[in-house]
């Protein structure tokens, strides 16, 4: 089997995650979808590192994880405070982009 399939898989997962971001309103779920996308990328990285035979890909994936962790922490904190202020976790409710 050709490891390229891993890439196909990651692409698929990424797309699903993206679509989720677009159609879900619950901020937490949206967040999960973002995580899904990140993971898909990580998979791609890892596969690439295997293909090119060096570890840089894995390093990047590692950094991605770290950053993702940080991002999740902050993001969830934001969600919580949002929920406190306006008893809902819906993305649309929170959107004040239009004055």
């Amino acid at each position, binding site marked *: *089997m*050709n*490891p*390229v*399939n*891993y*890439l196909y*898989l990651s*692409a*698929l*997962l990424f*797309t*699903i*995650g*993206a*679509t*989720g971001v*677009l*159609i*879900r*309103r*619950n901020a*937490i779920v949206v*967040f*999960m979808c973002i*995580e*899904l996308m990140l*993971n898909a990328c*990580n*998979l791609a990285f*890892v*596969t690439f*590192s*295997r*293909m*090119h*035979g060096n*570890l*840089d890909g*894995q*390093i990047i*994936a*590692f*950094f991605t*994880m*770290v*950053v*993702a*962790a*940080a991002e*999740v*922490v902050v993001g*969830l*904190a*934001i969600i*919580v*405070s949002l929920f*406190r202020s306006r008893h809902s*976790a*819906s993305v649309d409710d929170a959107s004040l982009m239009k004055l």
Partner: protein
Amino acid sequence: MSAQELAAYSTSTGEAFQFWVLGTVAVIGALATVFMKRAVHSALSLAGTMIILAIFYLANGAYFLGIVQIVVYTGAIMMLFLFVVMLVGVTAADSLKETIKGQRWLALLCGLGFGILLLAGIGNASLTEFDGLSTANANGNVEGLATLIFTKYVFAFEITGALLITAAVGAMVLTHRERTERAKTQRELSEQRVREGKYVPPLPAPGVYARHNAVDIAGLLPDGTPSELTVSKTLRDRGQIRDVSAEALNDLKALEQRAEERLERTEIEPATFKREEASK
């Protein structure tokens, strides 16, 4: 031959089998993440997907990452998610009904197009030959990563450290609520109640039935309607009050009817009629 070489060049049929099975599961998990009504379920299915990804990492010779994936992601991050979900409301199932006109179709269309393009891109990129990680992982995957991290990527590494700290502090700052005045003592509260002249006695208890832990069941007022006051504020906010007034009345009816039957008063219709009425 050891897993190392195996991961390096050829991909054994075993891996192929593993890929096709677990890959399917992963995709299903992803879909579930997106389409489950309740956040908890989404979180769980995402966790499943992540574990499968961890396995794939291992299969791709990224042992360290595989472990980290399980420990950090599935172990820490997903748990964090669950915490928040609990905090925000487990049962708060948000309807999947779309509010923005055409959003869903647009989204699906974009997703479809995007996915197709991506796959096509990967497809026509000639990635047939590949040299495995045997050399890179020669003296241990972890050592290999470490050397890279602490030599080539040391600067980025430091920065990510700073980033993590910032994130932690940021999270605290965001969630921390500054208490402006001293918390009121019991005494002050009661005094205040008396002064305001409402709810001088403590709030009424919830209607507890020995059915399950039922703090979420409102107590009934004499006319049989449930009283919001009897349920705690958080539940009220989440709208997780269970209204059992109807069944209570039904049970009452049932009781009466049985009593009637025992007393050989057989006019079924009214009873049934009543029941239907009650069930309304």
